[in-house]
C-alpha cells in the first residue's frame, strides 16, 4: 500500500495522550507537558505535510488494521495537511502566549483555570487534528464532540456570569448542531452501509435519504461554525473568553465544521450538490460578509469587533461552493481559512495584550497605544493587512483564486461581495489603527510590564499571515494548485485599481469615523436585526429553516445522477 503512514494516528493520539496525562498528574504538569507537545505536534504536522507533498495519492492509515467499511481509516490530502500545519502553528503561538496569563501562580500547587486550560487545550488540538484527518463520518462526529467539550469550558474560564451564559448558549447550540449531523450519519449508513468518505462517494445513487442526510448534516455543521444567521453564540463566546482561548476558538475551532462541510460537498458529493443549494450557501456567506463587517465596525469593544469580523470572514469560506467546478475555488477556500486562522489568532492575542496593558478594550480609548505598546499594535496592523487582503498576505492570493474562479464560472457577483467586504474590513482595521495612533485623552499608565515572548507570539502569527501569499514560492509541486499560480499575474491584480479601491475607500471611511471621539451609538437597523437574530428561539427557527431550505434546494438541483 502506498501512502500509508503512522504519522496520521500520531497527530491525533499524541495530543490526546498529553491531555490525559496532564489530567492525571495535575499541578503544573499540564504546562510542562505542553512544552513537549508543541515541538512534537509541530514535527508531526510538518512530517505529514512533507509526505503528503511527495505522495501521489492521499496519505491514509487503517486503524487497528481493519479496512473500511468495517474499520475506520484516517486520511490526509493536501488540504488536511495544510490545516494540520496551521493548527500546529497557532497552537505553538497560543501555548507560548498563555504561559503568562494562564500559568499556575507561584506558591500554589494547582489552580483551577490553568489546570483546566492545559488539559483542554491539547484536547482541542486532538479534536481539530481528528476532524482534519478523519475518513469516516462517525469518527468525524466523535471528533466534533472532542472539540465541543474542549472548547466550551474555555469560554467561561474566568467564571464571570456573562461568560457562563455565553458558554451555555454555545454548548446547547453546538449540541443541537451535533445532533443534526449525527442523524445524517444514521441515514447515510442506512442507505449505503458505510460512513467512509471514499466508499460513500463511489456508491452514491442520489436517493432521497442522501439529500435529506446531507441537508441536516450541513445545517448542523453551519450551526457549529456560526455561519450567518446561526451566529447567536459566537460574539459573546469569542469576545468573553480569555485571549488565548479566543484565539484558538476563532482561528481554529470554527474551521473544523467548515472543513467537514467541504468533505461532504466536495468529497462525498464530488461537487454534485447542484446550483441552488450551493447558491444558498454562498448567499448566506455573502450575507455574513456584509452583516458581520458592518457590525464589526459598529462595536465599541475591540474583542467584540474581532469576533464579528470572524463572522464575516467565515462567510468568505462559503463563497467557494458555487465555484466548486473550478479547482481554484477549493484552493482559495483553504488558503482563506489558513490566512484567517493566522491573522485572527494574532489579532486576538494582540487585543489581549492591549487589554492587559490598558486595563480595558474599548476602541475609543486606544489613544496612545501605538506609541506605548508598539509590538501588539504592529501585530494587529499586520494581521489587519492579511484580513483586508493586501499582498503579500494569504488573503490576497485567496481572493485571486476566488476572483479567477468566479470569472471562469461567470459569477462575478461574488467579486462585488468581496470588494464591499474588503472595504468594510479595511475600515475597521484602519479605525483601530487611527485610534491607536491618536493622542491619548489622558496619559497612559502601563498596568503590567510587557513580556517579550508573548509579544513575539502574537507578532510571529501576524507576520506569517502577512507573508502567506509567498507560499507558492516555497510549496513544491503539490496537488493543491498553489504552486501553479502565476504569482506575477496575481500581484499585478492585487496592486490594480480594481483591487485597491475598496481598501482606499475603507481607509477614508475609517478616517471619517475616527474624528468621532465617543463610542459608536448602540442603535440602528442592523444592530436591531442582530439582536433579534441572536435570540434563542429565532436562532432555532433559523436553524430549522436553513435545514428545510437546503433540503428543498437539493430537490431542485440540476439532474446530475
Amino acid at each position, binding site marked *: 500500500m502506498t501512502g500509508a503512514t503512522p504519522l496520521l494516528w500520531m497527530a491525533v493520539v499524541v495530543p490526546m495522550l498529553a491531555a490525559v496525562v496532564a489530567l492525571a498528574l495535575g499541578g503544573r504538569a499540564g504546562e510542562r507537558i505542553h512544552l513537549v507537545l508543541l515541538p512534537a505536534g509541530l514535527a508531526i504536522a510538518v512530517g505529514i505535510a512533507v509526505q503528503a507533498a511527495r505522495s501521489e495519492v492521499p496519505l491514509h492509515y487503517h486503524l487497528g488494521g481493519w479496512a473500511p467499511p468495517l474499520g475506520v481509516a484516517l486520511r490526509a490530502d493536501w488540504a488536511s495537511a495544510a490545516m494540520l500545519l496551521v493548527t500546529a502553528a497557532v497552537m505553538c503561538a497560543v501555548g507560548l502566549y498563555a504561559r503568562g496569563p494562564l500559568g499556575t501562580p507561584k506558591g500554589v500547587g494547582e489552580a483551577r483555570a490553568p489546570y483546566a486550560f492545559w488539559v483542554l487545550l491539547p484536547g482541542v488540538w486532538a479534536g481539530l487534528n481528528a476532524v482534519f484527518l478523519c475518513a469516516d463520518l462517525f469518527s468525524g462526529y466523535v471528533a466534533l464532540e472532542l472539540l465541543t467539550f474542549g472548547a466550551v469550558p474555555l469560554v467561561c474560564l474566568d467564571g464571570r456570569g456573562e461568560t457562563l451564559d455565553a458558554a451555555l448558549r454555545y454548548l446547547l447550540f453546538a449540541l443541537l448542531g451535533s445532533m443534526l449531523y449525527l442523524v445524517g450519519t444514521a441515514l447515510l449508513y442506512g442507505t449505503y452501509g458505510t460512513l467512509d468518505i471514499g466508499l460513500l462517494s463511489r456508491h452514491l445513487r442520489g436517493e432521497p435519504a442522501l439529500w435529506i442526510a446531507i441537508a441536516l448534516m450541513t445545517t448542523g455543521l453551519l450551526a457549529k461554525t456560526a455561519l450567518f444567521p446561526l451566529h447567536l453564540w459566537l460574539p459573546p463566546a469569542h469576545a468573553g473568553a480569555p485571549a488565548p482561548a479566543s484565539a484558538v476558538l476563532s482561528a481554529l475551532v470554527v474551521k473544523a465544521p467548515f472543513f467537514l462541510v467541504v468533505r461532504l460537498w466536495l468529497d462525498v458529493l464530488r461537487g454534485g450538490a447542484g446550483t441552488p443549494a450551493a447558491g444558498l450557501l454562498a448567499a448566506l456567506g455573502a450575507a455574513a460578509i456584509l452583516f458581520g463587517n458592518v457590525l464589526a465596525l459598529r462595536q465599541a469593544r475591540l474583542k467584540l469587533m474581532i469576533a464579528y469580523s470572524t463572522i464575516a470572514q467565515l462567510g468568505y469560506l462559503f463563497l467557494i461552493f458555487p465555484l466548486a467546478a473550478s479547482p481554484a475555488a477549493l484552493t482559495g477556500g483553504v488558503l482563506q481559512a489558513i490566512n484567517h486562522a493566522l491573522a485572527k489568532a494574532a489579532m486576538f492575542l494582540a487585543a489581549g495584550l492591549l487589554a492587559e496593558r490598558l486595563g480595558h478594550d474599548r476602541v475609543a480609548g486606544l489613544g496612545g497605544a501605538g506609541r506605548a505598546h508598539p509590538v501588539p499594535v504592529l501585530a494587529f496592523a499586520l494581521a489587519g493587512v492579511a484580513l483586508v487582503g493586501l499582498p503579500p498576505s494569504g488573503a490576497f492570493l485567496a481572493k485571486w483564486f476566488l476572483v479567477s474562479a468566479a470569472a471562469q464560472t461567470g459569477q462575478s457577483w461574488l467579486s462585488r461581495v468581496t470588494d464591499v467586504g474588503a472595504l468594510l474590513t479595511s475600515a475597521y482595521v484602519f479605525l483601530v489603527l487611527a485610534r491607536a495612533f491618536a493622542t491619548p485623552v489622558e496619559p497612559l499608565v502601563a498596568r503590567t510590564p510587557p513580556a517579550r515572548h508573548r509579544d513575539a507570539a502574537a507578532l510571529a502569527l501576524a507576520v506569517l499571515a502577512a507573508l502567506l501569499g509567498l507560499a507558492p514560492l516555497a510549496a513544491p509541486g503539490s496537488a493543491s494548485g498553489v504552486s501553479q499560480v502565476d504569482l506575477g499575474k496575481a500581484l499585478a491584480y492585487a496592486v490594480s485599481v480594481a483591487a485597491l479601491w475598496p481598501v482606499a475607500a475603507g481607509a477614508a471611511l475609517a478616517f471619517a469615523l475616527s474624528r468621532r471621539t465617543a463610542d459608536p451609538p448602540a442603535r440602528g437597523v442592523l444592530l436591531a436585526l442582530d439582536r433579534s437574530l*441572536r435570540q434563542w428561539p429565532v436562532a432555532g427557527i433559523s436553524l430549522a429553516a436553513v435545514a428545510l431550505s437546503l433540503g428543498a434546494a437539493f430537490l431542485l438541483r440540476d439532474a446530475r445522477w
Partner: protein
Amino acid sequence: MSTATLFGVYGAVLVGIGLYGMIVQTELLRRIVAFDVLGSGIFLIFGAVARRGAAGGLASDPIPQAMVITGLVVAFAATGVATALLLRLSASAEGVARRPEGPP
C-alpha cells in the same frame, strides 16, 4: 410496516418533538430535557437502521449499535456539562440568565 421502519418513524417524530422543545422552551433545564428527547429520537433512527441490517443470524447490525452506545455516552456527558453550567450560572451573583440576550 416492519418493526424497524415503525420505530424509525417514531424516532423521526421524537426528533421533531425534541427540536420544537429546544427552540421554544425558555427554562434552560427544560431545553436540556428537550435535547435529550431529540437525542433519543436520533438513536431510535439508528436502531431502525441497525434492525434493517439484520443478516446472517444477527438480529441487528452491530456497527450502528456500537455507534448508538458511543452516542448515548456522549449525550450523557453533554447533559452533565450543560447542567453543571446551568447550576453555576444560577449560582453566580450576577445572574445574567435574567438577561435573555446576554452580552452585548
